[in-house]
């Protein structure tokens, strides 16, 4: 009976997948949802690839997983991956089905799965990953994830004891999970002249997690990421097995100290520090999977940072940029605002928050997170406007005001489209849309609309200039 239920669920999920494709929809988790509705234990029964690699953590897991998958594709290694953020059990199922025969048996040897931290408690015991990378642990959604300590405790309970862990040495929260498990560490040492960011509101390891004494940070990159030591008990960041060196604008030297020392210069995947972490995570995982360095290096040449995270369109001296801020995630938003706050050469900037998710249709969401987010980074002379398009925009306006942003710079509207429509594009050179994981269609429409208006503005200025 259970076999029949499984096969029925498998057939229904496949049918659902075909229907979604024919309708031109994405719905990357829908086949998994159908399968689980028919057979709640579907994933437990589904044959798995021989080797499973999982990537979890608060930030960067999608990008790191995509880097790994793209490298495997480039190397001709067929594998299954839950593409672009469908990181719950349904997404894993949908991915596995896509590379399985009619009995559900996997046609590939490798499975690369990005796994949501909360979902890890049900997914890891089933998938039993051979390699598990944890990119970092930060505060995320208060409603869903509570706090980083809580997520660490979930991981401690769910990580299979045989898994090889790839951990962030610069993060004293995730570096300490599952202490009995085998582990490798990665680190991005301070870059020459790299400024520290000790102003972030959130630092979840101000105090030693063992003895409660304030930690001494010799280098604080942002939040709790950096190098620290406890003056009382001596706790400190672990030594790294994989690390970056000689970071240049377009390339980076990746070092490993696993079996002897190896250093290889390769293309840099993105220009942000977070991109370095994602690239290094992917590199460490790929090396532990047994891929030769030259294969990885060659594959990295072809990889681009996914446009789902960063998108830009230029018109003369004007441009519109989409930057991922994630929904109700104070750290991801702070990282994005820190970048915007450094864009001194982008002319007059308007920053529009279009990443506000709402609780069903009732707009009752908790806005506590915006007080942990460093909105203060936007209080810059070159930032002309700061706005929010959401039914809760007045709460944001209060927060912007408390951050010292002058009232005349604050914009707001009940929705994203009206917010963008109300912006006078002739008064700005750069519009930054801080977007999240939801409302992609609306954000895309806002982006296109702003692009058209910026283009028209530039054209209008050109037309108004006297002929030479």
């Amino acid at each position, binding site marked *: 009976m259970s076999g029949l239920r499984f096969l029925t669920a498998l057939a229904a999920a496949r049918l659902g997948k075909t229907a979604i494709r024919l309708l031109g929809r994405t719905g990357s988790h829908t086949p998994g949802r159908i399968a689980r509705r028919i057979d709640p234990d579907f994933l437990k029964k589904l044959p798995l690839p021989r080797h499973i690699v999982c990537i979890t953590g608060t930030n960067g897991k999608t990008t790191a997983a995509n880097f790994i998958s793209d490298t495997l594709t480039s190397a001709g290694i067929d594998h299954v991956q839950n593409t672009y953020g469908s990181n719950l059990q349904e997404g894993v199922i949908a991915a596995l089905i896509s590379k399985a025969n009619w009995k559900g048996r996997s046609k590939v040897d490798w499975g690369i799965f990005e796994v949501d931290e909360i979902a890890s408690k049900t997914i890891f015991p089933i998938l039993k990953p051979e390699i598990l990378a944890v990119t970092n642990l930060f505060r995320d959604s208060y409603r869903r994830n509570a*706090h980083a300590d809580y997520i660490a405790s979930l991981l401690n309970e769910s990580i299979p004891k045989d898994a090889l862990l790839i951990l962030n040495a610069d993060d004293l929260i995730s570096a300490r999970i599952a202490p009995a498990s085998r582990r490798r560490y990665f680190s991005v040492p301070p870059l020459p002249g790299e400024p520290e960011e000790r102003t972030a509101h959130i630092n979840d390891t101000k105090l030693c997690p063992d003895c409660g004494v304030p930690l001494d940070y010799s280098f604080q990159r942002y939040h709790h990421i950096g190098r620290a030591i406890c003056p009382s008990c001596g706790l400190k960041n672990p030594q790294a097995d994989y690390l970056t060196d000689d970071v240049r604008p377009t390339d980076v030297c990746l070092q490993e100290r696993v079996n002897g020392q190896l250093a290889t210069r390769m293309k840099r995947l993105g220009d942000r520090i977070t991109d370095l972490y994602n690239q290094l995570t992917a590199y460490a995982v790929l090396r532990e999977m047994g891929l030769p360095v030259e294969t990885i290096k060659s594959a990295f040449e072809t990889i681009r940072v996914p446009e789902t995270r960063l998108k830009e369109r230029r018109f003369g001296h004007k441009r519109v940029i989409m930057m991922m801020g994630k929904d109700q995630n104070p750290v991801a938003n702070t990282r994005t605002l820190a970048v915007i706050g450094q864009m001194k050469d982008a002319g007059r900037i308007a920053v529009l928050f279009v990443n506000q998710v709402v609780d069903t249709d009732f707009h009752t969401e*908790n806005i506590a997170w915006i007080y942990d987010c460093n909105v203060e980074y936007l209080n810059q002379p070159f930032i002309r406007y700061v706005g929010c398009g959401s039914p*809760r925009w007045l709460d944001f306006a209060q927060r912007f005001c408390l951050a010292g942003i002058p009232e005349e710079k604050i914009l707001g509207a009940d929705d994203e489209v009206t917010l963008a429509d109300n912006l006078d594009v002739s008064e700005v050179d750069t519009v930054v849309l801080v977007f999240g994981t939801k409302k992609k269609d609306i954000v895309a429409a806002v982006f296109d609309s702003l692009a058209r208006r910026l283009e028209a503005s530039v054209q209008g200025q050109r037309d108004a200039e006297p002929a030479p």
Partner: protein
Amino acid sequence: MKTIEYLYSDVGVLYGDQGHFLFFDQLFAGHKIVRTGLADEPAFVRGSVDLLYLGGMTERHQRDVITRLMPFRDVLSARIEAGMHVLLTCNAMDIVGHRIVFPDGIVAGLGLFDFSVDWTPWPRINQFVYGMWQDIALTGHKSQFTKTTFGPGMEGRHFFSADRGMGANPADSREGIQYKHVYATQCMGPFFVINPPLMKHILRELELPDKLPAEAFAEAAYEKRAAQFADPKTRQAMEVV
């Protein structure tokens, strides 16, 4: 000159409580503000403090805070009886009850108020909260793993009655503590920032001008939120994680 103490500000800053620091720094500019770390002796022990604030923290830090505060329990009790303003948000309120029951054991609280708290890893309760205190509408949010049980000693000492959302527990709409000048709620985040009429009331109790930072936006946001939360058509999202 008032003395404002941010108690254990290095750990009591979990869910948007940073907003209280930002807000109070501006609200009490010109007054003495003391930030007390977990390793420090609280300022209210050494001398007079006019307003003490403690925000939400991890469960591990709840245990640490109780350990640190327990030697000063009687001083704190005396200060409360003498009229010190004490503002507690989120699970900072839990520590002044009798006990917190965790899956791995019971942690005795300061026992200043007659209630106990049960912590379970599931479900996480996410709700908006609306209720009246005196003639002031209060709005807040809860995201928590806990349910609170009030004892008979909480009679007449709860803060407000939650007309919308959960109070102490799903069967008890009584929310928080209001005793003398103690204002405590398990609502998380910048509760005193987003309820300007309440903060103005507290300022008047402190005999300070009731002018707030970002007041125009604060009041407009509050009015909109309060009307929306009070509206029976606005339903809870029913999100359980």
